[in-house]
C-alpha cells in the first residue's frame, strides 16, 4: 500500500462514520454512568483508553475479501483448514464474503490432515486444492504432509497466517504464532514461497505460485497472508487499482527435440528395449501415450506404481516379472524413474550394506527422461543417488511422449516395424499365465487367521468390480495384491504413493481423493494400515461432517509391522535370544484399539474388529450400502502382518 493504514485504526470512509459515532457514544455512556447511590467502592473504568480515541468498530471491504477474489479467480474449489487466529480475517471472508463456495471451507482436526487432503485431491482432480494453516504452529503441524507432497512432486497451495508487524500483535499469543520468515519452516520442501506486503503483491504472488506449482516439476508452494493485510480495509484509492493477473495458455516443459530424436534412434536399434515408469503419468492421457510408444517399439513396461501409468492387465505390463524383464533389456527407457541408480543397483540390508549391481546386460543403454534434476534442493535427500545415463533428457516425460512418438514414426523403417511388431506379440505372451498363478497363491491363504491380505483384497474386489471405483491408498503392505489380481483398467483407478513414505499419509490423502471423486461420482475405497490410521483418526470426523463418501478398511495387524521385522532382523543379527522383546515399541496392542468404536464416535457407520474371513463379505456389503448413500464408513479387519 502506498499509504500504510493500520488495522483497527482506519475510518472506512463516510459510510462507517455513523457506526463510529454510535460506538463512541456508547462507550462514553458506559464510562460516565448516571448518578447512583453513594458507595465506598470506586467506579471501575471500562477502559483506560480516552473515549475520544476509540477505533472504528465496523469497516467495509477488507484485504481478505480481495484474497478470496484471488482464490476464486484461480478456481480453487476447496480449502482445508482447522481455524487459527492468524488467518481469522481470511477465514471469515471465505465463508461470508465468498459465500463458502469456490473455495468451500473443509474443516479438519489437524493441519497435517489438511495438507495431506490437498495431496490426495490433486492426484484425482488434477487441479490444486488449498490448505490454510495457523502461523508457525499450524505450519509446523502441516510440514510432514507438505514434505510427502514435495517428494511426490504434487502441488498444493499452502496459505499461512502471520502477524508481521510487531506493533499490531496482541500480547503473548500472537507473538508465539508469528515469524520473521514464516516460510523458513518449509522452504526446503516447497517450490516457492512469498510473504507479500501489499494486496497487489499478494495477487501477483498467488498467481505466480499457482503457475509455478502446476508447472512440472510440481510441488507445494506457500504464501503467507499477513494479518494486517487480511483485516485492514482496502482504501478506495487502492481498491480501484488492484488487478489480479490471469493465467492463460501454458505448456509443460518437454525434452529437447534433438535429444528425443537420438532416444528414438537408440530405441529402434535395440533388440530388447524395456520401458520403466514410475512418477510418469501427469494426466489421464499419460497411459495412452505410454502404450503408444510401447506398442510401437514392442517393449514391455515395468511400472513402479507411483502414478497410474498402465493398466495392470495389459499384456505389455511386465511389472510382476520386473527383474526378469529388466535383466534381458539392452536398452531401458526410464520415464520419471525417481531412483535411476536403483534400477540397476541395490543396497541389500546386510551388516556391511554392500552396493550390489543388479544382473544386467553388459551393453545396456540407459535413456532417462524426467524432471528429477530440474528441482533439486540441498538438504533433504529425496533426490536419490546420482546415476549415469547414456542419454539424459531433462523434461516432463508425459509432455515429451508426443515428440518421441513423432520421432519414432519418422525414423522407423518397414524392417524396424516388422521387427517391433513381432517382438510385441512375443512380449505379450509372457504375461498370460500370471493371473492363474496369483489366484492359486491367494486360494492357499484364503482361510487364514488372522485374515490374509490376499483374502481381504479379493473380498473387496468382489464388492467393487461392477462399480466405477477408485482406490487411492498404497498397496505395498498388502503384497500389492490389487496390482496383481484386480482389473485396474481406467487411468484414474489408482494414484500411487505418498512420495516420502511419511506415515499418516494414506488416511487423510484418501479423503482428499474421495472429495475429488465425490465431484466425479466415483466410489472411493481405501485400505489403510492401523499405524497410518492412528496418525490421523480425526480425518473420520471431517468425512462425516462434510458427507464425503469413502469406505475405509483398516488393515489392522496391531503393530508397526515393518518395524517388527526390522527389530527382529536386528535381534537375529546380534544373536539376542529373547524374541518377546522385538514387540517392545512395535505393537499397537494390549489394549487393542477398537477402530470401529473410534469411527462410531466420530459419527461413522463402522463394524469390527472382524477376525473371521467368512464375515468379510457381509460387513463389506453393509458398509458399501452406506458409502453408496453418500456417507463414509469404516471396517476394522484384524489381519496378518502383510
Amino acid at each position: 500500500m502506498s499509504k500504510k493504514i493500520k488495522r483497527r485504526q482506519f475510518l472506512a470512509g463516510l459510510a462507517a462514520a455513523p457506526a463510529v459515532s454510535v460506538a463512541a457514544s456508547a462507550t462514553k455512556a458506559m464510562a460516565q454512568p448516571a448518578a447512583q447511590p453513594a458507595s465506598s467502592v470506586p467506579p471501575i473504568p471500562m477502559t483506560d483508553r480516552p473515549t475520544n480515541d476509540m477505533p472504528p468498530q465496523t469497516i467495509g471491504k477488507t484485504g481478505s475479501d480481495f484474497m478470496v477474489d484471488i482464490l476464486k479467480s484461480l478456481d480453487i474449489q476447496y480449502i482445508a483448514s482447522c481455524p487459527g487466529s492468524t488467518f481469522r480475517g481470511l477465514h471469515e471472508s471465505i465463508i461470508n464474503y465468498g459465500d463458502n463456495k469456490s473455495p468451500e471451507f473443509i474443516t479438519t482436526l489437524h493441519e497435517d490432515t489438511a495438507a495431506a487432503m490437498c495431496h490426495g485431491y490433486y492426484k484425482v482432480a488434477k487441479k490444486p486444492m488449498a490448505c490454510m494453516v495457523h502461523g508457525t504452529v499450524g505450519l509446523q503441524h502441516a510440514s510432514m504432509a507438505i514434505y510427502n507432497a514435495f517428494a511426490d512432486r504434487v502441488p498444493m497451495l499452502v496459505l499461512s497466517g502471520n502477524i508481521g508487524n510487531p506493533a499490531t500483535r496482541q500480547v503473548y499469543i500472537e507473538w508465539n504464532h508469528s515469524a520473521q520468515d514464516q516460510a523458513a519452516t518449509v522452504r526446503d520442501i516447497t517450490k516457492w514461497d512469498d510473504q507479500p506486503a501489499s494486496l497487489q503483491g499478494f495477487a501477483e504472488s498467488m498467481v505466480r505460485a499457482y503457475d509455478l506449482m502446476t508447472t512440472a516439476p510440481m510441488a507445494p508452494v506457500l504464501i503467507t497472508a499477513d494479518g494486517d493485510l487480511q483485516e485492514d480495509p482496502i482504501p478506495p484509492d487502492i481498491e480501484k487499482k488492484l488487478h489480479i493477473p490471469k493465467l492463460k495458455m501454458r505448456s509443460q516443459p518437454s525434452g529437447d527435440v534433438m535429444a528425443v530424436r537420438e532416444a528414438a534412434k537408440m530405441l529402434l536399434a535395440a533388440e530388447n528395449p524395456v520401458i520403466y515408469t514410475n512418477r510418469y503419468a501427469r494426466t489421464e492421457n499419460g497411459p495412452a501415450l505410454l502404450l503408444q510408444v510401447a506398442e510401437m517399439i514392442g517393449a514391455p513396461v515395468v511400472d513402479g506404481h507411483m502414478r497410474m501409468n498402465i493398466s495392470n492387465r495389459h499384456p505389455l505390463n511386465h511389472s510382476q516379472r520386473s527383474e526378469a524383464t529388466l535383466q534381458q533389456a539392452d536398452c531401458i527407457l526410464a520415464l520419471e524413474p525417481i531412483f535411476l541408480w536403483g534400477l540397476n543397483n541395490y543396497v541389500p540390508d546386510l551388516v556391511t550394506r554392500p552396493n550390489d549391481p543388479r544382473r544386467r546386460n553388459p551393453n545396456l543403454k540407459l535413456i532417462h527422461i524426467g524432471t528429477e534434476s530440474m528441482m533439486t534442493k540441498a538438504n533433504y535427500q529425496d533426490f536419490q543417488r546420482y546415476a549415469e545415463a547414456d542419454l539424459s533428457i531433462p523434461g516432463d516425460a508425459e509432455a515429451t511422449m508426443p515428440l518421441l512418438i513423432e520421432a519414432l514414426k519418422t525414423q522407423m523403417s518397414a524392417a524396424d516395424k516388422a521387427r517391433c511388431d513381432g517382438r510385441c506379440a512375443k512380449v505379450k505372451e509372457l504375461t498370460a499365465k500370471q493371473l492363474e498363478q496369483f489366484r492359486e497363491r491367494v486360494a492357499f491363504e484364503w482361510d487364514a487367521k488372522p485374515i490374509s491380505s490376499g483374502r481381504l483384497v479379493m473380498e473387496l474386489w468382489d464388492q467393487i468390480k461392477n462399480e466405477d471405483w477408485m482406490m487411492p491408498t498404497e498397496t505395498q503392505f498388502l503384497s500389492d495384491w490389487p496390482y496383481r489380481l484386480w482389473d485396474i483398467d481406467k487411468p484414474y483407478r489408482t494414484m500411487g504413493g505418498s512420495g516420502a513414505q511419511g506415515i499418516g499419509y494414506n488416511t487423510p490423502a484418501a479423503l482428499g481423493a474421495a472429495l475429488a471423486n465425490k465431484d466425479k461420482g466415483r466410489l472411493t475405497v481405501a485400505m489403510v494400515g492401523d499405524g497410518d490410521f492412528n496418525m490421523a483418526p480425526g480425518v473420520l470426523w471431517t468425512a462425516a461432517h462434510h458427507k464425503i463418501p469413502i469406505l475405509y478398511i483398516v488393515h489392522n495387524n496391531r503393530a508397526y509391522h515393518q518395524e517388527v521385522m526390522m527389530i527382529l532382523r536386528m535381534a537375529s543379527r546380534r544373536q539376542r535370544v529373547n524374541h518377546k522383546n522385538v514387540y517392545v515399541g512395535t505393537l499397537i496392542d494390549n489394549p487393542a484399539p477398537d477402530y470401529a468404536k473410534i469411527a462410531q464416535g466420530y459419527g461413522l457407520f463402522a463394524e469390527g474388529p472382524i477376525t473371521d474371513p467368512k464375515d468379510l463379505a457381509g460387513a463389506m456389503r453393509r458398509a458399501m450400502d452406506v458409502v453408496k448413500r453418500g456417507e463414509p464408513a469404516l471396517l476394522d479387519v484384524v489381519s496378518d502382518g502383510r
Partner: protein
Amino acid sequence: MTNIRNFWLGAALAVFAISGAAAQDAPKGDAKAGLANFQKYGCYTCHGILGQGTLRDGPKLNPTALGYPAVLQQLRTPRYEMPAYTAVQISDQQVADIFTYLATLPKGPDPKSLKQLQ
C-alpha cells in the same frame, strides 16, 4: 519391483531341492508346537502365518519340495538378506516342528471355486 532377495533365495533353495533332500529327512516334529514356534520366532512376520509369503519381505515357503536339510541350512546360514537363526536361538527340534507345521498345512480351496477370485 520384485525384491532381488527373493530371486537369490529362490535360486538357493532350488539348488537345495535338486540336491535330493526330501520331506522324509526331517526329524519327527509336532505341528502344534511348530505353529507356536513359527509365531514365537517371528517367521510369520515376513512369510505370513501359513508361510504363504509376502511380496517384498519373504518368499512362500514350500518345505515339502525343499526338504528339511535345505530348510535348516537356509535358517542357519541364509543366503542374502534373511537374518540367520543359530542353534542358540532356535533348536533343531524346534525347526523340525516348524517344518512339520508347514508341511501339514492344507492346500486351500481350488481357486476356480472362489467367485471372489474370478
